């Protein structure tokens, strides 16, 4: 469940009508709900097959390849990174046109680097259309790209995959190899986001990818290693107008377990019953978690310079698993001040009582900033 797709749809005004978009462009419900007619819907459990499902599903409105990870250098410096490719269709079909530029698929990409030493968060955004091979997905060898940012395989879609990207402030060249098999989220990959049929996505993850490579900043390159998490999700509608945002956690614990949890927040301040999670054991076996099985509690709030507040520290309790976790940010200022704003940052996992380090992960928080005019 990722924020970026909403960015796209919200920004673009939800549907391809000729009327100007309403200024409530960031009402999440409208954005991820909206009129999905003409698109395929996530109605039923489907059979996933790979590598095909790594590729694009253009009949659905939104889709993303969402990579986050925690890295360390040899001398113990901590970094977090994010590389995301969002695809969104602005109309169900391509308008017939002689021009190769005519396209109904848009791409947006975000890249971010969190430096634990300097506590600086660098980010960049790119846009393109699915035309002239400026951005898109290629099957053999597998590649998803926008401009010169890309995630790609060298042969077919086989691992290891390479991440290559260059912004004005940093460069990444990473190699990714999965330690665990693919995990289907929700009900066998069908992730229901609100009660209406079809308000769901197809969602799978590669929760633990061994990561190594080079990080370059200011002409200075360093070797980094760590763990990454890849989320793949596609849908045509998901939320209702009652839902205002969510808090999403992807945590890799030192004991070999991985935990994904998200809560959907409602306008009335309640947590939506469709909030859910998955606990993955060391061998890669997944256990679905319902809202009743976990508790989320903000511990501390951080305020941006312009007054927006994010809960950057959390307590997560899973009584049945005997887990009581304290989630702290690598540092507070990891807000993505991109076209539309959200908080996406590296976090450290501790034992709530003893403070013992238990792992690292990524936290995403949306719906805390009013839509810009």
């Amino acid at each position: 469940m990722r924020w970026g797709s909403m960015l796209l749809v919200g920004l673009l005004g939800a549907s391809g009508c000729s009327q100007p978009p309403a200024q409530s462009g960031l009402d999440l419900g409208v954005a991820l709900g909206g009129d999905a007619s003409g698109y395929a819907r996530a109605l039923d459990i489907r059979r996933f097959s790979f590598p095909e499902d790594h590729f694009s599903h253009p009949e659905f409105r939104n889709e993303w390849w969402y990579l986050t990870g925690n890295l360390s250098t040899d001398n113990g410096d901590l970094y977090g990174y994010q590389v995301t490719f969002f695809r969104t269709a602005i109309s169900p079909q391509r308008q017939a046109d002689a021009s190769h530029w005519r396209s109904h698929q848009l791409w947006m990409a975000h890249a971010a680097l969190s430096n634990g030493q300097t506590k600086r968060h660098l980010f960049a955004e790119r846009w393109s259309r699915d035309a002239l091979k400026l951005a898109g997905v290629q099957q053999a060898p597998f590649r998803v790209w926008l401009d010169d940012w890309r995630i790609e395989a060298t042969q077919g879609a086989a691992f290891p995959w390479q991440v290559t990207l260059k912004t004005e402030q940093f460069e990444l060249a990473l190699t990714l190899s999965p330690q665990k098999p693919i995990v289907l989220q929700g009900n066998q990959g069908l992730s229901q986001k609100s009660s209406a049929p079809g308000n769901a996505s197809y969602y799978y993850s590669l929760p633990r990818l061994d990561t190594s490579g080079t990080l370059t900043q200011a002409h200075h390159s360093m070797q980094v290693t760590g763990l990454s998490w890849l989320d793949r999700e596609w849908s045509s509608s998901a939320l209702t107008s009652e839902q205002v945002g969510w808090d999403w956690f992807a945590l890799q614990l030192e004991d070999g377990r991985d935990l994904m949890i998200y809560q959907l927040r409602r306008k009335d301040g309640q947590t939506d019953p469709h909030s859910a999670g998955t606990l993955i054991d060391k061998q890669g076996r997944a256990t679905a978690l319902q809202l009743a099985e976990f508790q989320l509690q903000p511990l501390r709030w951080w305020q941006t310079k312009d007054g927006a507040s994010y809960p950057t520290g959390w307590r997560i309790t899973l009584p049945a698993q005997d887990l009581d976790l304290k989630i702290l940010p690598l540092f507070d200022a990891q807000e993505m001040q991109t076209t539309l704003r959200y908080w996406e940052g590296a976090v450290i996992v501790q034992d709530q009582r003893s403070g013992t380090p238990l792992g690292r992960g990524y936290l995403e928080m949306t719906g805390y900033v009013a839509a810009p005019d």
Partner: protein
Amino acid sequence: MVSLNLVLSSTRFFRRHPWQFWLSILSIALGTAVIVAVDLANASAQRAFALSLDALTGRATHQISAGGTPFDEGFYTVLRTKLGYQHSAPIVAGWLRIEGETFTLLGIDPLAEPMFRNLTTRAAQAQLIPLLTRPDAVLMSQMDAARLGFSRLDRVPVEIQGQTHPVQLIDLYDTTQNVTPEGILITDIATAQTLLDRVGTLDRIDLILNADAAERLRSALPPQLKLDSVGAKQGALKQMTRAFYINLSALSLLAMVVGGFLVYNSIALSVLQRREQLAVARMLGVTGGQLFVHICLEALIIGLLGALLGLFLGVGLAQFLVALVTRTINDLYFVLNVSQLHLATWVILKGVGVALLGTLLAAIGPALEAAHLAPMLVLRRSELERQSRRLFPRLALGGLGLLILGVLVAVWPSEALIVGFGALFLLILGYSLAIPYMSAWLLKRLEATLRWLPTTAKLALRSITAGFSRIALAITALTIAVSATVGVGIMIDSFRHSVSHWLELTLQNDLYVSATSGVASRAEGTLDNFWLERIAHLPGVAAYSTGRSVKLDVDSIPTDTLILSPSVYTTQGFEILAGDTQTAWQAFLAGQNVLISEPLAQHRGLGPGDRVRVFSTLHGELSLPIGAVFRDYGSSQGMLVMPRNLYAEHWQDPALSAIGIKLRNPSQITAVKLLLKRWSKEATRPVSIRSNIEIRQRSLMIFDRTFAITQVLRLLAIVVAFVGVFSALMALLLEKRRENAVLRAVGMTPLQMRGMLLLQSAMIGSLAGVLSVPLGWLMSEMLILVINQRAFGWSMEHHFPLAVLFAAFGTALSSAILAALYPAWRLARAPIASGLREE
């Protein structure tokens, strides 16, 4: 107390002489109006130009292009995905017409834009989805829409290359920022490619780069593409219009001179008339210093009132001039849309400043004189006249000095236009200083020769001589105004004559089939393929030549280029000005050289034997020798002519823009034209079929349109001069009230009186008419040999039309007589008794 009295005396004077007051105001207002109007028109056009340049290039520092021809869009993908230049935006741009107005269609990728153009980004992002998904969606500025009467979501037919396409104005972009360029239609690049028939190609790629990145990119470019800095490109465009703007500025200078005379005239008159009162004031204890300050202040107040009125008049006039200026720019240079007047502060300050300064300068002389008046002694008119006569020879001597200086400056070996204008200014100033002396001399000769005249006529002559000091001013103003019409008239006539002659020579063929772009008068389109084949097989065709109009980068400056495949008649159509005709043509036919037009040679300092660097799409930069320089009035920026075989070697563009047909029997023109017209119905691209006579007429029409603005300004000069004569006559009339009453009392009829005044005025007009000819001729020489040569690079044959001379004389005479009508009417009605009582 004293100052109050002075103020009262001034108000009383002007209350008793309201026309004097209003004429002063009007004179100053007219002078200010002309200056302000020309400057405003000029500034508005320049600003519109700057804005549209800005909107079109935005924050880009560099551009990738193929030297003017569209190039394959594939390189853009390489640029972004392989070379990693993400601050890059593809552009497809072209022209279209909406309800007869020309617009630039700017095809952009809204997703690549944010770095480049604020305006387009804001506008396009608000409408991103319809813009990207709908094949007919365009954005128009609110200002343009309001002018054309369109609203949001209107469907509008646009004409592109002669064909009409419907588009929808999906939104009107914001124009509240006051930096909105006019005449730009924004659309998605896909829509632009399809509408403009340029699928698969880009016109340019805008980039934001630092010097290092630019160097790296330059070395990575394929040979058919080049990277230029935007500054250099814009510089070339600005250079193009510089000459035109400078010419306009010259006209404003002229308006300033004439306006200045007028202001001087009216202020001086109002002081001269009050000499008695002022002397009395001195007697009552007012010091000379007080009088001086008072008169200067009075002049300033009048000047200020006049200047303010002039501002309003000027803004009104500017609206009209802007339209003319835009027309000319579109005819001669490029598409520019100006409908908004830009009220630049400096223009207003300059207009008011010149008016006030002129008023003050005009007042200083009379004010000084008033300050030095002996309290008891009232100088007699005759005394005053004697004084001013002593001044005339000295003025004339000074004028002669300035004239000589002016000629010296003119022949000074400089290419600078401003120096040419300096010379022109010196010339006008010098000559005008000599006018009083010359006219006095002429009058004396006249009196001596015309002894046989009837008494009334002699009286009329004498009375001019008697009040000469003020009449001299009117004559000077009229002379300058008329000479300006003579000078500009001769220049335009010579120019038109040369152009007409050149057209006759150039249009060697009987019929021309040319692809019109639908914009301005250029044949920049492409002809359908069938034309050449059919024309080649047409019976009765003696020969045909083909041309292709392209814009190539010559020495890095986009330059109009004609790709010529000549026929045996073609060579006769070129008048070679420099270079050996025979060898130049031999090399040209062999594809070994290029020819350049006179303006190109002039502007870039090129000549036969020099080489030019031309950017070719197949082989990059070529160095080509210049064979000869030919006469051409077609493009003031200059034109390069390249042989077709040379072009085919280095460019992949077999298309033709025009075919010239020479018939064996010219009487068949009409029949062949009809046949061609019939064929044109099969054409998919717009085409125009014209005989050489039609082209000539059309060209001359555009020529006349170009000079419409100068005609308007000439008319204004005359109006200003007319007001000058009018005020001088009115002054004369009032001053001579007693004298005239005596004449009436001794038996002169009102009719005779009127006749006398009209005769006087006719005399003034004739003098101005005669005197304006030499100055006009000098001005025309200056305009032809110095100004035009330097500004446009055009040389022309001198043509001295008698008609212009007669027109000048007629203008001077008729405006003087017209100016006398009202004074004459008043003169006849003036009561005798009260006139006599003034004694």
